[in-house]
């Protein structure tokens, strides 16, 4: 059976239900209230217990890292033959986990999967925390982590001695830092409307903090239009980025000479594995969040879990295919070292790990073929934990079994982790959950503005009609403030499409071009060094960094252009707008025919109450405008 239909099926299944909103029976205000509730009440004892437990485990990890950095890498179980084991296993594991967020935000966004709106915020947060956990390992796995900044190509007094742009580890540096940065920007941009919602609901310190963070967001239609464009562009950038990151991580192995590592299948295999493990981790967290915060059950429904389980099933198939392909390649290659690497995996001293991996990653997820399993919270929870165990072992098996018995039997050795390494791994879980719990406590866990957008509320049409009628009536609609992006409203209101695409293209191509020239200049012109017998100007080796920097600058250019054009900056005082369940139409009093009462009548035709009285308070900056606020309360 071909793998492809499997991969597509969950999307198709979701597409069939396109007209049916993923969340039903909720008013706009319900969404705001439900999502903001955990932030606005005191922390529950359960939260405190979980937080303190996670923080304690994190502290344990910090102590382990502190001891290791002060004493030496020798405190790990590595040896002359096995130079990487727990460290890089954990790194790849966490990077893999970190793929789900961007996948849900970007790839599913491009695929128009509406169900993503309930999970994307926490999945993105999870991505950031997972990448943070991942980034610890390349840092502390260094023999001299205090010199880690040497991996950055900065002008220095050593020549300048640059860095080796041919090293996959350097590609990692760029891939991981770009991925983290772009994911963080993406996450923050997504948060902006929700931060404004909270700002407008709160008082005191919280209002101040969220006021600074929300950049003066007020739900203006022009901003929404650009925002939607920017979101699309970032999703477009993040999609190849997310694929590139795990491809580059897989290059660490694929470009080496070791049997079991040196394989062209690695990039797709790793990406599929990353999505597989990332989705499972999202499932784990979602199910816990549902259990702890019952109000969220209406937003994280069984349908969501079902859809994600389908994705897990699809990627499990891909991973299983990769395992079989590896075995076949080893057999068919006729290369005794390659063959032995796989015989050793399946039958050697780490066979238990290999079969754990196969059972957890290929055998158990087959249960997801059954709808009953996919829709059973308990079954999905257990299976998602198994998948994460299996995926951790996959990385462990790839790294350790390839190293511990490579070419020359004289150097074969074994590997056992020390308690220091185990404590470090535990510590990253502590960090991950600590960060996640803080996130649940202080930030909206569900993207309110996005969920509101897929509720298919009657307000969507109503506001469009009001704006259309007002325009027909000769009124100039200066702006419309909405709590979420109402699709099609920009056409009705005559807002021109955004030109952010140009900013993105210019930034991306400039970044890519400059870094390519920079790599050639440092490697071939400024200080050419013979590395591995390769030509000084090794263009193919420069591609990964070129791509990553291109994405970074493209994303930066897009976001900066958006903020500049929309006049948003940190700490900007917000003007009146709409961030909860209200809509505001701003009419411009351009001529004498401007009649607020007439406008009120037009609005009333659609069962909407119009307020005109406090125009100056709402819009002090625009003296010439009159404001009409469309309350939707009466329509319940």
């Amino acid at each position, binding site marked *: 059976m071909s793998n492809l239909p499997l991969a597509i099926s969950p999307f198709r299944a979701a597409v069939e239900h396109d007209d049916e909103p993923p969340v039903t029976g909720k008013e706009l205000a319900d969404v705001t209230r439900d999502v903001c509730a955990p932030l606005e009440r005191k922390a529950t004892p359960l939260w405190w217990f979980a937080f303190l437990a996670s923080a304690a485990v994190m502290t344990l990890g910090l102590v382990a890292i502190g001891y290791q950095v002060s*004493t030496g890498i020798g405190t790990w179980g590595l040896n002359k033959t096995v130079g*990487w084991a727990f460290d890089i296993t954990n790194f790849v594991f966490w990077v893999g986990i970190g793929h789900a967020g961007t996948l849900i935000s970007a790839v599913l966004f491009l695929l128009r999967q509406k169900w993503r709106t309930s999970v994307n915020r926490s999945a993105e947060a999870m991505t950031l925390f997972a990448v943070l956990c991942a980034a610890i390992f390349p840092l502390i796995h260094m*023999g001299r982590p205090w010199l880690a900044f040497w991996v950055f190509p900065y002008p220095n007094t050593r020549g300048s001695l640059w860095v080796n742009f041919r090293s996959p580890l350097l590609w990692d540096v760029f891939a991981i830092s770009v991925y983290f940065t772009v994911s963080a920007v993406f996450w923050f941009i997504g948060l902006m409307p929700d931060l404004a919602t909270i700002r407008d609901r709160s008082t005191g310190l919280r209002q101040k903090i969220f006021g600074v963070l929300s950049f003066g967001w007020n739900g203006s239609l022009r901003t929404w239009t650009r925002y939607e464009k920017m979101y699309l562009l970032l999703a477009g950038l993040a999609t190849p980025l997310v694929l590139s990151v795990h491809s580059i991580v897989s290059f660490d192995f694929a470009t080496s000479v070791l049997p079991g590592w040196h394989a062209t299948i690695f990039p797709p295999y790793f990406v599929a594995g990353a999505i597989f493990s990332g989705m499972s981790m999202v499932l784990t967290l979602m199910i816990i969040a549902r259990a702890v915060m019952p109000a969220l059950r209406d937003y994280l429904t069984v349908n969501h879990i079902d859809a994600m389980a389908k994705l897990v099933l699809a990627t499990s198939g891909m991973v299983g295919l990769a395992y079989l392909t590896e075995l076949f390649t080893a057999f068919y290659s006729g290369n005794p070292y390659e063959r032995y690497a796989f015989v050793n995996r399946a039958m050697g001293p780490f066979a238990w790990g290999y079969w754990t991996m196969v059972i957890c990653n290929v055998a158990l997820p087959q249960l997801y073929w059954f709808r009953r399993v996919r829709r059973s919270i308990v079954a999905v929870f257990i299976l998602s934990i198994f998948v994460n165990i299996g995926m951790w072992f996959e990385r462990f098996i790839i790294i350790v079994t390839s190293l511990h018995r490579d070419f020359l039997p004289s150097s074969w050795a074994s590997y056992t982790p020390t308690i220091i390494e185990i404590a470090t791994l535990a510590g990253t879980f502590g960090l991950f959950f600590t960060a996640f719990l803080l996130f649940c406590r202080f930030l909206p866990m569900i993207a309110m503005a996005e969920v509101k957008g897929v509720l298919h509320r009657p307000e969507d049409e109503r506001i469009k009609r009001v704006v259309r009628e007002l325009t027909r009536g000769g009124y100039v609609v200066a702006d419309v403030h909405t709590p979420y992006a109402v699709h099609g409203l920009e056409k009705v209101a005559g807002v021109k499409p955004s030109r952010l695409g140009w900013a993105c293209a210019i930034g991306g191509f400039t970044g890519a071009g400059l870094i390519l020239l920079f790599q050639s200049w440092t490697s071939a012109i400024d200080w050419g060094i013979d590395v591995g017998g390769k030509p000084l100007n090794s263009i193919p080796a420069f591609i990964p960094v070129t791509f990553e920097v291109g994405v970074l600058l493209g994303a930066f250019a897009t976001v900066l252009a958006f903020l500049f054009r929309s006049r948003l900056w940190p700490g900007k005082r917000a003007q009146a707008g709409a961030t909860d369940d209200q809509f505001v139409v701003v009419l411009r009093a351009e001529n004498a025919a401007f009649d607020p009462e007439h406008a009120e009548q037009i609005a009333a035709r659609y069962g909407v109450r119009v307020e005109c009285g406090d125009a100056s308070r709402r819009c002090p900056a625009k003296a010439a405008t009159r404001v009409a606020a469309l309350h939707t309360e009466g329509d319940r």
Partner: protein
Amino acid sequence: MPGRAYWMASTCHGCPARCGVLVKCRDGRPIRIEGNPEHPLSRGGLCAVGQASVLELYDTLRLDGPMLRGAKSDWASVDAFVREQLAGAQRVRVLSTTLASPTSKRVIDEFLARFPDGKHVVYDVPSASAIREAHGGVLPHYRFDNADVIVSLDADFLGTWISPVEFTKQWSSRRAWHAQFEARLSLTGSKADQRVRLHPRETTAVLAYLAGATNEPPLKPVVLERIRKRLEEARGRSLVVCGSKRVEDQLLVKRINERNYGTTLDLAAPSYQREGNDHELAQLFAEPVDALFVVDANPVYDLPEFAVDHVPLVVTFPSHIDETSKRAHAVCPSPHFLESWNDSEPVAGVYAVTQPAIAPLRNTREVIESLAAWSGKPARAYDMIRATGKTAEWDKTLHDGFAVWSAATPVAALYAAAEPRRAAALPPPLKAATGVAALHTFTPVLYASIAMRDGRHAHNAWLHELPDPITKVTWDNYASLSPKAAEKLNVKDGDVVNVQGVELPAFVQPGQHDGVVAIAIGYGRLGTDRFAKVGPKWLLRRTHLTGGDTVGRRAIQLAKYDTVTITKTGKRHELATTQLYNRVDEHRPEPFAPVPSPRERGEGQGEGSSLWPAKAKGAHQWAMAIDLAKCTGCSACVIGCQSENNVPVVGKDEVLREREMHWIRIDRYFKGEGDELQVVHQPMMCAHCGNAPCETVCPVLATVHSSDGLNQQVYNRCVGTRYCANNCPYKVRRFNWFDYPHDDVFANLTLNPDVAVRSRGVMEKCSMCVQRIEEARIVAKQQGLPIADGAIRTACEQSCPADAIRFGDANDPKSRIAALRKDERYFVVLEELNVKPAVGYLTV
């Protein structure tokens, strides 16, 4: 001159073989010992023990000043005490191991002459007394370089027997057909063309057959017939050597060698490298003595049984408090050979001088000065050596390190003179033992190990951490058992067994006779608990030594037994092995079966195809070739490299974690089992690949390629990702998991100032002694001449007793290395990876 090295010729006192050495000094202190290429016996070779002995010079635990009755004292008091005790002494004995020093022997004789019954008793461990006895009291000087056929019975002549460096030089220059009969797998056995497992009890029967005393082969008729035929064919150009301690056996050996005297055995210029006399030693036990002077020996430890408590005066001259000195009345520490005057005559006609390279670091006095003082004729060692008058050209001898003249005694006369017991009836051949010995009963085979020899270097951490060439075990001795015997006893590596009262970890050794247990002597020395301090201190460090404990166990007392019983104790004692997998199969064929040469494969001149444009090469392309047919695995290169390149000692716990730091390791592969066991030793160091996989992956350019073909490791740029080591197909890179300071800070004085000491967290590896290349480059530049072939010798190459390692410039078509690279036996390991290594091998 500060910062510039100078060399002094001297003689090694690591064992009685007395190889010629050159001592490298920097800023007034010796930092390295190398073989003296002009020396007539060792010819530039120097074993691991000799090269390691520089470390002992800087040992802070060496005795500082004399001791009297266990308390610190001064020389005047000691002199007064000894003189007083000697007044009226009748029977005075000097007990020593082989001294091979004319002056020492003369001074001892003069000292003893004052007493009515004074005798100098010499012993060796292991003893060669039977050979001397069979030759009328002289030891023939063996000439393996004249032999076409060599048959050795339990004589490890390439490893530890009499003069291994000299013998290895001779052997490798000719590479004669060689058969080895032995009970355990020795270094020599690992190089044999025909190896036969032989129970010690069967030695006489085999010798009798080879000597023609019987025509009934006691075992393996086909093999023995072939060996006898070969010996007959090579009559006059063959050599049979035997390690047996029975005179009867040695007489048989002599009979087989009869026609070889004058070619492969030299009696005209006999050897003084073993002077022990077991009869005199036995007599020493038999009669009471008034005073015992122990020179260069430690009989309480060395001999199965030796009691000194009843002797009224015991004087020792040790470097450390040893087992004998603990019971001595006066302890008169003697200096290290690098800080003393001495002389030797290892072989008649070869006179060698030992000169100090540094003023004594401790309050010590040379043995002969002490004896002279007590004789009432105090003299300086230098003057006494001059007075011996063995050389007319003193300055030249001192400069060269040796003087040579030829003895002109006719061989026939010597042979006749050396034949007192020739007519003695041959003993009846012993019946060959049949089958495996009875359950749990084994014959003990006690042997001197490559690193520890008789135990006199037990305070040397380099030697303790040197992997045994055969077993690859460090920091321990063990009870070696054949796989069958181990199965019978149901023991695995590291299971502690009780061998007749000695508790030792078992070690399963292929190629060993099923009826013997082989144990290295030289372990279990007093004071070796000092090594508890070796290695990094951290949370999960396991201690393998406690105060009062010893590294390994003393085993010489088992020499008393013909057979020992072995019982399993149920305890475990992990053995720190540097190579865990020993077998080759299709997975690793090269060392045994040469890969077809590039020409045979039709691939042009060995330059594999490449996707990349050829890179511009520098003026030189440094390269190395190692002849696996010559390499015996003796590990001299490992210590040579350790000494030259400041390689740290990491301790047993770290070796157990597979983290030894040696830049050269000698891979040892086994194929087959029992008599069919084949062994290959393959030294592996950084191959300096032209397309080095390690270089590509380093993110910070800490390992890069030089224009002259070296793979350079830049320590101060390394951040320690270990990616390079992972991607090294040869696994020759070593990582500094911790800081590895010397356990004895004073030992820092052995560090080579030309090589950086690496800190924690950086990768290191063989640099092909880049400091030596640069030195030669500077010299050549100053002289305006090109670097001559052979002007640069890496530390491993320099002292290789087998001349198996060759370094040179592959760009120079006339160089030795260029010729070797065209040899049909030349191959590179893992050629199919196309990494283009600069280090290649010649197949066995």
